Structures are given as structure tokens and as C-alpha cells.
């Protein structure tokens, strides 16, 4: 038997993620499914970290294991966690199972054609990718190659990705919020009665612990954004952590408490302003005579010596990303947790 080409610990994790995926889908209680899904995401980010993808693992830990799970939980909080036990539909499930198995077999048929796992001379690793590693210092003075590719070489993707977050935020706002906005007074009482009686703000321990944690979380998040040039992290990760700190505030105290500090209007305006900052930096490049997002031409209006322009441009757009992601996460959470009422909720 040939030895496994991957780290043994990874084998265990890989088997575990499959198990967790199956458990998460077969559990009959939705709350349980959400929690197992969170654990699944966390395992997944360990695997990625093991393969050298720290930035991806960092993002998955914050987004997949953290915020996504909170979103699912707050949806369940507003609805119900029970699943109806209904017989039948087995033939349909088997049919889909057959289709899916065939698809899987089709995908596996390409395996012999793949380069060996971990081969550094495979086309994926040897055609375009070496350029970034070789030139990130001379081009942009950014030792974290992921950051320089993210915000510079493929900065357009990142602008659009920020736009995706912005769209998700205004889409959820439009779906949930607008309808209930005017009917605040004639809210049907029984709907409130449906909500679980558990009040999360009761717990003294949770309150004190989060009061202690939140400032450190925010400080760490700012460090992650600002230090993204040299260490794992950047606008997304930092933005999600900042957003998570506010979500924690909302969960441990009260949604009202959070809304007392951040009004609906200011949240939604800040979400748009991050995208605006990113797009405007790109536009400034056009007006200075370069191509869109070509930060080099911004040199005359940025501080520092000439060849630092790209590095500064990257920082500017990362701040834009951070703002949009942070406030999007908060606004999405408030919408989902309060079912668009913006008054009370998880």
C-alpha cells in the first residue's frame, strides 16, 4: 500500500468533515444541525490551515464557523427548530441519490488525469502563480502575497466581492425590512408570543465576559486590517471580526442596546460607503491617467516615497472592504434576528 501523500492528521480531519456534514444534514432538530454545521466549518478551516492557506482558514473561521452559524441560529430563533416527520418521498430521494452518485463518478473519472497532489510543478502552481511570489516585493512591497494578489493583481475581483456583500445586505434589507416598517403599531401580538421565552440578556456571566472581550476583539480586528500586508488577514477578516464584536454586543445585551448606538440609517449608509471608497480609489487612478485600480499613478497624492504607492493603495481599499463587511454583517444580523422589525430579537 502506498503511503498517503498528506499529513496523517489531515486524514482524520478529512474523515471527520464528511461525518459532520452527514450528521448536520441528518439531525432532526435544526438548531442542532446549525451547531454541527459550525463545527464542520471549523474542522474545514483546520484542514486549510494545514495546507498553507492561512488567509482562507482565517476567513472561514470568522465567516463560516462564526457569522454563518449565527445567521442560521437567528433565523431559527425567529421561526422554529422542529422538523416534521413525514414518511414517503423515498423514491425521489433515491433517484436524486442515483443522479448525484453518477455525477460523483463522472468527477472522479478525471482523477488519473490530475497532476500528483502537492506537485509544485503542476500547471496550477507553475504557470501564472510564480509571478506573484517572485514580484510581490518589487511591485508592491507587500510580503503577504495573498494580500497583494487580493487587492492589487486581482483587485477588481475584490471590488466585486465587496459589491456582493453590499448587494446581500441591501437585498436582505429589501426582503425583510421594508414590509414591516410602517406596521409597527399594529403588530399582531400572537406573533411575539411565538418567540421563545428565553432572554439571552439574562445571563450575568455572558454580559460581563463580553464586556471584557469586545474591546480586545475590536483592537485585534483593527490590527488584522492594518497589518494585513505582513501577516494573515486583511479587510475581510478584520471586517468580519469587527462585525462579530458588535453582533456579540447585540446577543449578550440586547438588540435595542446596539441600535441605540448605531441607527439603521447610519448602518446602511456605512455599508455603501465602503464600496464607494474602493470604487472611488479606482476611479481616482483613471483620473490620474492610469488604468482602473492602477495604484501607481496615485503616487503624487499619497504619502511616502514613490514605490510605496501600491502598498498605500492596497491599504486604502482594504479599509473600504473592512467598512462594508463590518456593517453588512451587523445589518444582516439585525435583519435576520429581528425579522426585519429592528426592535427586538436574538
Amino acid at each position, binding site marked *: 500500500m502506498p503511503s498517503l501523500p498528506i499529513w496523517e492528521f489531515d486524514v482524520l480531519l478529512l474523515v471527520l468533515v464528511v461525518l459532520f456534514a452527514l450528521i448536520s444534514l441528518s439531525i432532526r432538530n435544526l438548531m442542532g444541525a446549525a451547531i454541527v454545521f459550525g463545527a464542520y466549518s471549523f474542522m474545514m478551516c483546520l484542514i486549510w490551515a494545514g495546507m498553507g492557506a*492561512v*488567509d482562507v482558514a482565517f476567513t472561514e473561521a470568522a465567516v463560516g464557523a462564526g457569522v454563518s452559524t449565527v445567521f442560521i441560529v437567528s433565523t431559527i430563533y425567529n421561526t422554529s427548530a422542529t422538523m416534521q416527520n413525514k414518511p414517503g418521498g423515498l423514491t425521489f430521494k433515491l433517484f436524486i441519490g442515483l443522479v448525484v452518485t453518477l455525477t460523483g463518478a463522472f468527477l472522479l473519472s478525471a482523477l*488519473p488525469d490530475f497532476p500528483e497532489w502537492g506537485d509544485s510543478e503542476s500547471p496550477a502552481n507553475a504557470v501564472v502563480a510564480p509571478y506573484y511570489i517572485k514580484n510581490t516585493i*518589487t511591485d508592491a512591497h507587500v510580503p503577504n502575497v495573498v494580500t497583494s494578489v487580493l487587492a492589487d493583481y486581482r483587485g477588481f475581483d475584490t471590488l466585486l466581492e465587496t459589491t456582493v456583500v453590499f448587494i446581500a445586505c441591501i*437585498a436582505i434589507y429589501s426582503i425583510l425590512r421594508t414590509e414591516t416598517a410602517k406596521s409597527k403599531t399594529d403588530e399582531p401580538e400572537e406573533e411575539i408570543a411565538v418567540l421563545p421565552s428565553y432572554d439571552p440578556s439574562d445571563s450575568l456571566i455572558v454580559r460581563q465576559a463580553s464586556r471584557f472581550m469586545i474591546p480586545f476583539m475590536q483592537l485585534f480586528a483593527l490590527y488584522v486590517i492594518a497589518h494585513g500586508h505582513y501577516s*494573515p488577514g486583511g479587510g475581510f477578516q478584520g471586517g468580519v471580526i469587527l462585525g462579530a464584536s458588535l453582533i456579540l454586543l447585540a446577543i449578550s445585551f440586547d438588540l435595542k442596546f446596539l441600535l441605540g448606538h448605531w441607527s439603521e440609517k447610519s448602518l446602511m449608509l456605512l455599508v455603501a460607503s465602503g464600496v464607494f471608497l474602493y470604487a472611488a480609489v479606482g476611479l481616482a487612478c483613471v483620473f490620474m491617467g492610469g488604468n482602473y485600480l492602477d495604484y501607481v499613478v496615485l503616487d503624487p497624492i499619497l504619502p511616502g516615497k514613490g514605490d510605496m504607492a501600491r502598498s498605500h493603495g492596497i491599504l486604502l481599499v482594504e479599509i473600504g472592504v473592512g467598512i462594508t463587511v463590518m456593517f453588512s454583517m451587523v445589518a444582516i444580523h439585525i435583519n435576520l434576528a429581528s425579522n426585519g422589525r429592528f426592535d427586538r430579537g436574538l
Partner: protein
Amino acid sequence: MENLIANFNYVIVVILMMIGLWAMLAQKNLIKKCIGMAIFQTGIILFFISIGAKNEAKVPILSKFVAENPPAIIVNDYANPLTQILMLTAIVVGVAILGVGLALAQKIYQQYSTFDEDEILENQRK
């Protein structure tokens, strides 16, 4: 068989994606569908990260020494940054879709008081 072991990673990737795809199509519960969708997406992300992994490679952050001597950079010391960027984007897109899906599911629940697809269809026919 040897091929399967040599590509153990990719086999797991395909299994994960197919679990997710099956849940998206066959599960009747809307929240379970959303979870299946997220599993499918993480499967794809694992696939890309596996493509970009290199034996004996470190995280793609240059050390202080080579950062000061750019000609000393050895490409194969660092994992592929390109696939990682692509997947950062995919993760963020994934959470955006999940959020919109959950918002729609909440609205549907308000209307029909159930997450079950069959019951919703029955309600719509009435």
C-alpha cells in the same frame, strides 16, 4: 485503488460536494437546503485549496530575509497564493448567498408556518 489513495483529498472533495448537492436537491426542509448549499461550496473551496497545495511549502508570506533580498525568493517554498485568493472570494460570496437564502426562508415561514417544501406547495395549490 492506488489512484484513489494517492488522491485521497480529491475523493473526499467529491464526496463532500455530492453530499451537498444531494441535500440541495433532495432535502425538503429549506434550512437543510441552505446548509447543503454551504457544504457544496466548502467542498469546492477544499478542491481549489488542494490544487494549490505544495509538498514542503509554507504559507505564502515572505520572510523578512527574502523580503529584503527579492532575488533570493524561491517560488516552491510558498503555497500557491492564486487559488487562495479565488477561494477567499468564494467564501464571501457563499455567506452572502446564505444570508439571502435565510432571509427568504424567514419570509416563507411567516407565510406558511413551515419550512417543508411539500407542505408549502400544498398550501399554494389551495
